[in-house]
């Protein structure tokens, strides 16, 4: 039983991490209708920059953090200036492929500037087992993961308010529906896009630091981040709560499958289980858990 609970708990915590990455996707999709494939690499890039700044200049981490946020805003600006601006009103699939290109650019730039060796993030985040659980129930739970869960909760709350209650939030939703229509009522696409990509960059930085603190900053980070895709499918592309719930389901499902099914088929099924789960789910509910049902018209 303890193993089961431990698996579920560690799955939940991993799920929070996925959800953090997925949040960035949802933000950009909600606000620009773009499926940002580069979100995973943005996590990597942000974490790389953060770790790189600390390594090269040995400034205290809050300063490195602020500097990295500035870099991510710069990335957002560049993305808008050099990519999105030229692709207004293109088909979503073209924009999607452009973000794949963007992923390569960010990866290349990150590697050229900071090198491709594994970096460690050590900024004094809590780590080790949560003593209460370990002593009383013999369950191992890493403090770092609990901390990440708290951070994620705060971020989600903040974003939900931002989207629903502010004027910018409403403009964001308008842009997502129709670029041209939004332009015609006087919304500045350019500002909106810079804002939303900056916020997504910020979320990517937070997610990147959490993942990086857990397992080091290296290229595989962007592959882990790809797992946010099945999370999105479960949750629906436009739903912030969906991203959270989807993340938790994927995290738990994956860990349980690895422990209970994995040994039967040779292990390492973590690599694909999430995708298969999402695929099976799609067949029954194409619009995701929280997505709206689409009525097709002609």
């Amino acid at each position, binding site marked *: 039983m303890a193993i089961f609970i431990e698996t579920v708990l560690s799955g939940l915590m991993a799920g929070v991490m996925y959800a953090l990455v997925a949040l960035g996707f949802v933000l950009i999709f909600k606000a620009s209708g773009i*499926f940002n494939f580069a979100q995973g690499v943005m996590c990597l890039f942000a974490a790389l920059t953060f770790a790189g700044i600390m390594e090269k200049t040995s400034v205290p981490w809050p300063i490195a953090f602020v500097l990295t946020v500035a870099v991510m805003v710069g990335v957002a600006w560049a993305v808008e200036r*050099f*990519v999105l601006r*030229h*692709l207004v009103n*293109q088909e*979503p*699939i*073209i924009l*999607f*492929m*452009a973000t*794949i*290109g*963007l*992923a*390569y*650019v*960010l*990866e*290349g*730039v990150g*590697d*050229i500037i900071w090198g*491709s060796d594994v970096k460690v993030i050590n900024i004094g985040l809590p780590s080790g087992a949560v003593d209460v659980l370990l002593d009383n129930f013999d369950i191992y739970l890493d403090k770092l993961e609990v901390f990440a869960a708290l951070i994620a909760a705060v971020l989600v709350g903040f974003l939900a308010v931002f989207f629903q209650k502010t004027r910018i939030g409403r403009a964001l939703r308008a842009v997502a529906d129709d670029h041209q229509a939004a332009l015609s009522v006087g919304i500045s696409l350019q500002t909106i896009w810079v804002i939303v990509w900056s916020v997504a960059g910020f979320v990517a930085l937070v997610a990147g630091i959490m993942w990086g603190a857990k397992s080091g900053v290296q290229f595989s980070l962007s*592959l882990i981040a*790809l797992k946010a*895709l*099945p999370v*999105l*499918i479960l949750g629906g*592309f436009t739903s912030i709560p969906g991203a959270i719930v989807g993340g938790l389901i994927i995290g738990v499902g994956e860990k349980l499958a690895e422990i209970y099914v994995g040994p039967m*088929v*040779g*292990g*390492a*099924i973590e*690599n*694909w289980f999430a*995708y*298969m789960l*999402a*695929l099976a789910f*799609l*067949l029954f509910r*194409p619009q995701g858990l929280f997505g709206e049902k689409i009525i*097709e018209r*002609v």
Partner: protein
Amino acid sequence: MLYREAGQFKSSYAADQAIFPIAQDRWAVWAFLAVAFLVVPFFVNDYWTNAILLPLLIYGMAALGLNILVGYCGQISLGTGGFMAVGAYASYKLMTSFPELNMIVVVLLSGGITAAVGVMFGLPSLRIKGFYLAVATLAAQFFLVWLFNKVGWFYNYSATGQINAPDRFLFGFQLTGASAQPWVKYLFCLTLLTVFALIAKNLVRGRIGRNWMAIRDMDIAAELIGVRPLMTKLSAFAVSSFYIGMAGSLLFAVYLGAVEVGESFGINVSFLVLFMVIIGGLGSIVGSFMGAAFLVLMPILLKNFMVDGLGLMPVTAKHVEILLMGLLIIFFLIVEPHGLARLWQITKEKLRMWPFPY
């Protein structure tokens, strides 16, 4: 002035629907094929075949396959690497289980098996579209690579987990294995590619191709005029996977000779082939080859330039290559979403008018 169609009149619908309706184009293509088949084989050496010609032909085949699915039928796929792996492992099993089997049959059967797998993963495409489908094909990518890594039967329980192509002969010439002649490999791949490029062209200009494009452009309207969505999408998945499977089979058996699945058929391969299709031109057969040529040649030239010319470290050169690849993709999507094929077409149009453009 030489490139003119004035005076060439078409007196039948067949002539009007020919692949190359302009006579000059036809001559150019025949000349190109003649050089490729009759001249090049006498001059190829190991470096040329291994570094340039074989990757070009094989990735050309894969890009052609993916272009049928993405460019013509509008179903985006990120599972190309996985499907190529199916082709490779299918031909490995066929070659080791039936040593007498003709290599042409092996390649075709590998394509067929991949087509069946492709159809299986294409089934969800009836219910899901766009990005959702892209994620679904990622499932194929990761699952297939895992499968070939974990299940010993596929690699005959070899200790390394690698698969190695045994020596096979075609019409008395050694085609696979370490001591195969470069020109045999080259001609084998070239012949297959030429035949299947022609078949692809025939498919896309007939009923089936029109149905694919109808689904791509407006799926609801297509269904209302009698195009069956499931059949059409699945046929695109099947044909596309067939080509990709053949490419995988050739990559393993003829080109590399030994393959480790995660390395040769990882998700990077999926992206590489997708990039070839985008840069070459979505919905264009000749574009697939242009894209393949571009992305095969570019890294070689870049590497020569940066490592030998500028004296950069090979690792840095690799990073710059990744960066440039990304920039190119974005550049093409912004400047010419229809890729090199459209640029080529525009050049020809201009040439037709030259020197009196108005």
